[in-house]
C-alpha cells in the first residue's frame, strides 16, 4: 500500500469513533502492535529529543525501503509512534520525504501537532523524514 492509502485506511478506522475517549483507547491499542525496537538499539542516540516521555526510533534500509522500529515508556506516545510507523515504514525514502501529514488532523489528533506539545509528535515526524533523507542520499 502507498502512504496515501494507509492514511486513508487510518482515517476510515478512526471515523468509527464518536468521542475522544474511544479514539484514545484505539490509539493505545495500536501501540500494542508497534514493531518494537531491538532492546540493543535502545541507546541514547536513538532517543527523539523534545518528548516528555522517552521515544526510541530505529531505522534500516531493506530492499530500498525504510523499515522503522520504535518504543516508548508512555503508552499514548507509543500509540502515536505506532500510527506514524504504520504510515511510513516499508516505504521508499522519496515517498516518505514527500508525504504530507494532514491525516493526523483527520483522525482527530490535531492537538498533538503543535510544535510545543510535550509529546513531540512533530519531532517524531521530523526524525522519520530525516532518516529518509539520509537513505535517499545513500541510494543516489
Amino acid at each position: 500500500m502507498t502512504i496515501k492509502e494507509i492514511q486513508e485506511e487510518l482515517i476510515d478506522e478512526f471515523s468509527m469513533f464518536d468521542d475522544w475517549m474511544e479514539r484514545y483507547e484505539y490509539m493505545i491499542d495500536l501501540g500494542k502492535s508497534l514493531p518494537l525496537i531491538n532492546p540493543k538499539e535502545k541507546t541514547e542516540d536513538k532517543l527523539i529529543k523534545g518528548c516528555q516521555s522517552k521515544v526510541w526510533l530505529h531505522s534500516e534500509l531493506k530492499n530500498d525501503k525504510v523499515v522503522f522500529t520504535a518504543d516508548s515508556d508512555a503508552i499514548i506516545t507509543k500509540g502515536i509512534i505506532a500510527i506514524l510507523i504504520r504510515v511510513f515504514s516499508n516505504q521508499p525514502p522519496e515517498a516518505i520525504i514527500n508525504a504530507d501529514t494532514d491525516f493526523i488532523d483527520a483522525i482527530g489528533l490535531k492537538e498533538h501537532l503543535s510544535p510545543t506539545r510535550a509529546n513531540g509528535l512533530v519531532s517524531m515526524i521530523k526524525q522519520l523524514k530525516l532518516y529518509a533523507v539520509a537513505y535517499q542520499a545513500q541510494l543516489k
Partner: protein
Amino acid sequence: MAFDIEKIRADFPILKRTVNTYPLVYLDNAATSQKPQQVIDSIVGYYSNYNANIHRGVHSLSQEATDAYEMARQKIQKHFNAAHAHEIIFTPGTTHGINLIANGFSSLLKKGDEIIVSALEHHSNIVPWQMLCEKTGAQLKVIPMNEEGTLVMSAYKELLSERTKLVFVNHISNALGTINPIEEIIQLAHEVNAAVLIDGAQSCSHIKPDLQELDVDFYVTSAHKMCGPTGIGMLYLKEEWGKKLPPYQGGGEMIAEVTFEKTTYAEMPHKFEAGTPNISGGIAFGAAIDYLNTIGFKAIEAHENALLNYATEALLAIEGLKIYGTGTAKTSVISFNIEGVHPYDMGTILDKLGIAVRTGHHCAQPIMEFYKIPGTVRASFAFYNTLEEVDRLVAGVKKAKMMLS
C-alpha cells in the same frame, strides 16, 4: 472577611472558561496562578491612564507613574515586613534575583569557601551556584533529603563551618510541596556568619513571610505565582548587603554620576535596577498583594489545607497511587504516580477532561533521581479551587487509570 469561595471565583475571569468542552479545573497553580480582575484592571489602568517612564520626568504623567510604582514597592515592603522600602528590589522574577546574588558573591568568594544548597532545589537554581563555584574556586555542598522529601537537618549542621559563606534553600519545594524549616536554617547559618538566600517562589502564594523576624539576608519571589503578572518579582536585600554587593547590570537608573573616568552608583534600590523597569508589572504586583491581603492569608491557608487533606485522602484511596513528599510540613501540592502509568499519559488524559495538572520532572531532576522515577503528576491547589474540583481530579485519575492500565 468570611471566606466566600463563589465570590472569590467570580474575580477570576479565566475560571469561567471550558477546556475540551469541560469546565476548566486549574490545578497547575505551582507553575503560575490565575489573575483576578483587580490585577488585570491595574495593568489596563496604567496603560490607559498614566503610562509614562518613571523617575526622570518632570511632567505629571511621569510623576503619577513614579508614585504608583513606588507605592507598589511600599506595599511589598509592608507585606513582607522589610525594614525599608529600598531593601525591596524589583526584578524580572525569582531566577533573576538569584542570579543577581550569585553575581554579587563572585567578587566576595575565594578558593576554599563553601556554598550550601538543598537537594530540593529547582535545577535551574543549582546552575548559578555551579557557575559561581567554577569562577571562584568555592565548593558546592548539598543538604540531602530523606524518603519523605524532607531535608536532613543533622546533615546540614555537619556541613556548616566557618568556610560556609552562603546558604541557599527554597522556602517550599516546587516538586513536592515540602515546607523547609528556614527559621532554623537561617539561625544556624548565622552562627557561622554565613549569609542566607531563600527562594520564595513557591511560598508567597500560601504564606506571608516576615522578613525581619526571619532575619534572612536575601529573599526572592515572583509575582506571577501570587496572582500578579509574569515578568516581575522582588529581591529583598538586607540594607547592609545592599552596600556590600556590586551592581548587577550597567545602564540607566543605576548610576548617580557618570564621567568617562568614573561612575558613581546610585543608592539602593536603583543600584540594582538598571534600565526602564517593568512599570505596569510592578504596579500590578502591588495590586496582587492588596488582593491577597483582602482575602487574608489565614483564610487562604485554612482553605488550601482543607483542599490538601481532602485530596490526599481521596487520591490515596486509589489502588496503586503513591504520593511523593509526605512530610508533615507541606503546602497544597500533591506530586503522585500510579503504578505502571507514565505521568505523561496521565496528564494527557486529564487534559482531555479539562483538568490542568503538571507532569514531568518539574525542573527538579535530582529529586526524580532520588525516587528513581521519570517524573510525577503534580496537582497544586490555590485558594480559588473547590472541593468539587478535587472530586473532578479524583474521578479523572480513576478514568485515566482505567484507560491506561
